[in-house]
């Protein structure tokens, strides 16, 4: 069968071993890139001609916002795979992702509000990006709430997977409806993200941060994945090997 390699790849012991071995390969580059990005963004990049040094929040806000979407998408894809092929490891990926995504969504909200404060003169504006981010946080909370409502891990996996898939269909609809709604009521936002005219000295640190955050997510995911795989495991033989310190 063509599927055997796929199943072996997704077999819990294999995943556990690979995840353990791979973690440092993601964690260290993530650390290096994030530190480099911090230096680049806080020190090397020049101040903006309009926003002065206030724009430097972009180096944490944009990667956080990026994470919130990336993690949700990953979660939904993994959940869909788990649902269709009844693959425990895929459900474990989804379960491991949710808290990471939720926490970065929270960070994106707070940094967005802090960035907006000097620009708008208020900590909260119903800006479409922030509003979408807030709704995304609710989606994450709903997902985690549903998951924790079930004692049986397997049912929790499968029920929450349906919600993740439904949610990912809705995310673009929600985003566009919020943008549409906002265009009726408010002047366009002051914030800019990925503005094409950004000079390289500003843009490169942002890129470095984006890559660093993504690798950081990968490393976190691998660690959490090991935990989630263990708690879904019943065949004891390999667990005893794996858990041995």
């Amino acid at each position, binding site marked *: 069968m063509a599927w055997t390699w796929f199943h072996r790849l997704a077999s819990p012991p294999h995943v556990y071993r690979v995840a353990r071995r791979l973690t440092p390969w993601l964690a260290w580059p993530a650390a290096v890139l994030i530190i480099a990005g911090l230096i680049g963004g806080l020190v090397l990049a020049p101040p903006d001609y309009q926003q002065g040094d206030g724009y430097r929040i972009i180096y944490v806000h944009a990667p956080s916002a990026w994470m919130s979407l990336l993690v949700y998408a990953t979660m939904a894809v993994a959940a869909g795979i788990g649902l269709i092929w*009844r693959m425990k490891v895929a459900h474990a990926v989804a379960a491991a992702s949710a808290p990471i995504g939720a926490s970065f969504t929270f960070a994106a909200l707070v940094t967005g509000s802090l960035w907006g404060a000097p620009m708008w003169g208020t900590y909260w504006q119903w800006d479409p990006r922030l509003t979408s981010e807030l709704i995304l946080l609710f989606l994450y909370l709903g997902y985690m709430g549903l998951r924790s409502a079930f*004692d*049986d*891990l*397997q049912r929790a996996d499968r029920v929450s997977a349906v919600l993740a898939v439904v949610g990912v269909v809705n995310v673009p609809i929600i985003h566009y409806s919020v943008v549409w709604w906002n265009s009726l009521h408010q002047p366009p936002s002051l914030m800019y993200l990925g503005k094409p005219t950004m000079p390289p000295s500003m843009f490169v640190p942002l890129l470095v941060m984006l890559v660093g955050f993504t690798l950081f997510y990968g490393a976190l995911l691998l660690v959490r994945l090991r935990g989630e795989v263990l708690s879904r495991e*019943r065949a004891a033989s390999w667990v005893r090997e794996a858990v041995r310190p």
Partner: protein
Amino acid sequence: MARAKKGVMSDLCLKGENVHLWRGDHHVLRGVRFQVGAGECLQLTGANGTGKTTLLRTACGLAYPEGGEITWCGQNIRADLSAFHAQLAYLGHEPPLKAELTARENLEYWVGVRRRLDRHELDAALARVGADHWADRPVRTLSAGQKRRAALAGLTLMRAPLWLLDEPTTNLDAEGQKLVGALIDEHVQAGGVALAAVHHELAVSAGRALRRMELTFA
């Protein structure tokens, strides 16, 4: 092809091969094997918690076994689940009746989702379970035993070759228990297949109809 084959009565056979199922950490079904063919009734006995209900729910395709497979007429039931479901009648712990509707209305809606019923058939089935007098009373006013009888009428009305029954005699008096035995007898003598989870053995009389299997804590 497959469909044509299913129609042949002698081929009717529900088979479980090495069925494994977990509920959380609890390994409920540990490699269960069973086989029931046409003209047979397999009675599952066993203490509470040994997985009788779980096995029935797995056999009808509600629960998904993590190991092994269930076949009907030689075909995995998952291959065409709705075709398989069209051939089975399942009776769970609770009679699936609505308190606000009469017994007759309940059957019309319950069985009517599967097949068209005519009045005479419905009357006959209700009479068979002794429901003539209370068929038009709201189920709310019926006793537990009467509800069970109404559910039995629904079971016969489905005309399904495969019966899966979970404690069919619950709440029934001695006469009612005899009725269950008689209905199963008729069913298997007509070439049907029955799988029942029971506490007390059913009074099924047909000679080859009765087989027992005991589930125990592994």
